[in-house]
């Protein structure tokens, strides 16, 4: 091809076609992936997963647009060989419409993302936490390498299994006896570090019945390196109906 005669608009039309095909394939795959999302066992998990899935759609689109432009132009504008050293006719150092479009999109997407899913998600999470009138308080004590749970108002102390009722917001009060740990139930969609000399709170509203045995995402898992017992610093979780919870409390309190 004669470099001097290269028609850049024609090349751009090719890129648009490439983009459309890429977007169709990419977003279809993403739809399939998101369709297989792991379980979401709390209101909070829905909020954080909404953020993640929204960003995934967007990431696929940006990946196709930017990555597609890289691949397409590298292919379209390749020279036949290393010894083909002729310079192309197109030698412009910049082209304002491209730069301006890029800038506007970059700033726009960035601003939009900060608002949604960022701030909107945070507002929702904070809203649950601040609105809760009467949370179920559970004291969580982390230590190398086990978890213990106490229910001060229910008179249940030092159990090693986490039993919670469905549908009620829980205020987990997190303390550690030794090093830093992190309280995480993957199905609940949020984690919180447990820090020496501090007390931290994590608010969770479970929405799905189940046990660790039926779904391993429903487990307490330490998520901050805390020594050699770290991988096994887990505790079983059981989400039960409010009635079953009452019964469990009656059996386990003093």
């Amino acid at each position: 091809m004669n470099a001097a005669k290269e028609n850049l608009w024609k090349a751009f039309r090719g890129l648009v076609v490439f983009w459309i095909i890429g977007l169709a394939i990419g977003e279809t795959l993403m739809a399939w992936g998101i369709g297989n999302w792991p379980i979401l066992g709390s209101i909070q998990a829905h909020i954080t997963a909404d953020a993640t899935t929204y960003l995934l759609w967007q990431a696929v689109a940006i990946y196709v647009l930017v990555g597609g432009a890289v691949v397409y132009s590298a292919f379209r504008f390749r020279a036949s060989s290393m010894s083909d050293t002729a310079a192309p006719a197109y030698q412009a150092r910049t082209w304002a419409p491209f730069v301006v479009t890029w800038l506007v999109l970059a700033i726009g997407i960035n601003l939009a993302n900060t608002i949604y899913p960022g701030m909107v998600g945070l507002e929702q999470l904070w809203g649950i936490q601040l609105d809760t009138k009467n949370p179920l308080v559970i004291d969580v004590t982390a230590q190398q390498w086990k978890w213990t749970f106490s229910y001060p108002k229910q008179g249940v102390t030092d159990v090693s299994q986490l039993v919670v009722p469905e549908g009620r917001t829980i205020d987990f009060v997190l303390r550690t006896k030794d090093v830093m740990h992190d309280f995480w139930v993957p199905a609940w969609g949020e984690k919180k570090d447990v820090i020496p000399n501090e007390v931290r709170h994590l608010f969770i509203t479970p929405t799905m019945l189940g046990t660790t045995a039926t779904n391993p995402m429903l487990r307490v898992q330490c998520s901050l390196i805390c020594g050699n017992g770290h991988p096994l610093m887990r505790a079983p979780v059981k989400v039960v109906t409010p009635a079953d919870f009452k019964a469990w409390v009656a059996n386990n309190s003093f």
Partner: protein
Amino acid sequence: MATNEIQENALNNMGVDKTPFAASMLFPLFRATLWGLTGYFAAAWITALLFHTVIVNPLPATVGYVVGLICWLMGSGVWEGWIRRAFGGKEAPTYTGIERYFRFGPDSKSTAVRYVVLNIVTFFLAGMAAMAIRIELLTPDSTSWWLSEIQYNQTFGIHGLMMLLGVVASAIVGGVGYYLIPLMLGTRNVVFPKLLGLSWWLLPPATFAVFMSPTIGGFQTGWWGYPPLAQNSGSGIVWYVLGAATILFASLLGAINIAGTMVYMRAKGMSLGRVPIFVWGLFAAATILVVESPATYTGALMDLSDMIAGSHFYTGPTGHPLAYLDQFWFLFHPEVYVFILPAFAIWLEILPAAAKRPLFARGWAIAGLVGVSMLGAMLGVHHYFTAVSDARMPIFMTITETVSIPTGFIYLSAIGTIWGGRLRINAAVLLVLMAMMNFLIGGLTGIFNADVPADLQLHNTYWVIAHFHYTMLGGVIFSWIAALYWWFPKVTGRKINEFWGKFHAWWFFVFFNCTFFPMFIAGIEGMNRRIAIYLPYLHDINLFMSISSFFLGAGFLIPLANLLYSWRYGPKAEANPWGSNGLEWQIKSPTPYVPYPAGTEPEVVGPNDNYAAEAKEPVIWVPTPSK
């Protein structure tokens, strides 16, 4: 090119030492090792005796390290090359031959070559640690025939720290940057050549100590060294702290040189507008180290003090571990930009020459490099959203997301350069394109970590492991190998084998993605990081990642063999094999000890990326003005 001939004549009379290699040239290396080990053991023993303890305890290990490091440096040639004069003695002569590669000295080119060697060695050792990790993860259980949980934790800690500080921190900056900076700016050496020489000699003992840390009990914390776990899980943490602090200090010596050379040593006519983009990338990285590293040293040393001196800054009933996190991440977040900015700049340096187009939107690209380095100073807190109060979340989320804007300028510039060009794709260019594709995934997935709601779930899972391997292995290491291939003729006068270069590029790309892409999924499915034991439902995906990683790891023998073989037997290259307008290519290859003969200086008369048919040469040679 005519300019090369002019130089050749003059250079042949420069009296450069041409003695062939002899084993006796290795003497400084042996002496440094001997003095270093002697110093270490003597000091550790004496301290242990004084404090009635054993030498593997934290205090003797610390004192031993410091004394051993100093003795090593003296043995390497710092004594006669630098210090002796301060005591009224004579300074050693300047070594201009092969000898200079094996001893401390002020020549930036041999320092850079030593960086390449050290980075490659460290990459392979830390890579073996990665293989050890993946072997452990072949099965969900504790794999008792392989590593214990304690050993597993030590392994990923060493892997992470060494890959970061021993490899990517200096791979491009050190091996490529220190070699090219003077040549690209049109000067004969960097501004503080001895400091630069010193910077390399600090690294071997530091690296060695980190790798040897299991011999004194290892460390369990991973590469973060968070208290109070640091203080109660093995004395090896002292070598982690000292090793990391030493390497950072070495980086700082390099950073001062980069910034100083760029400000004070540019050739005549090399206005800031004409400074090569790669040097801008190094400069942006250097500013980060100069501004941000002191706070992090201080944090590391206070962490050490809690360990050996009984203080309670971060530990005990009165200490605040979170204060350590603030200090640690103050540098170590922006440090990732120290790794990636030079890689970005490598893309933008190579692409114009490969596509025969000027660098597109150069001003925006520079704004991108500098902008990332500036924003980077303010956002370390995004590494522990799960530990801070709610009120601190929005600001650090916003600033972190903003980084995507200047980062995007790099892609803007790269795409605009390729567009309408005639891209000649050799192994180096192919690796650059692949690095762009990989880093794109790394960057886009970073937005999830910046977005607090998403991060509260993804933090400390394999999602994050995937994210940063896409940036560092997929971005930095691809670009590093590309740079080694591209400037190989400059250093050795020969070319690498293109077939094996491209073959490995594809191998690397495929198995890299097979190894790390599934980690995003594992993270979403609830696999947290730093675990030797995981739940059986994650077995299949881990098996797949482990097997892919073995192919990935084995593949690195290809570029190693390629570089070694081509160094001796590769096809001879012309002085400017890629037809680049870069100043570094306008002189002889391999670069002579003195790049320009006495009496001749380059004068820059045009941009170095003008490939238009009628373009003038960007540089002319003028006589050195008499002072």
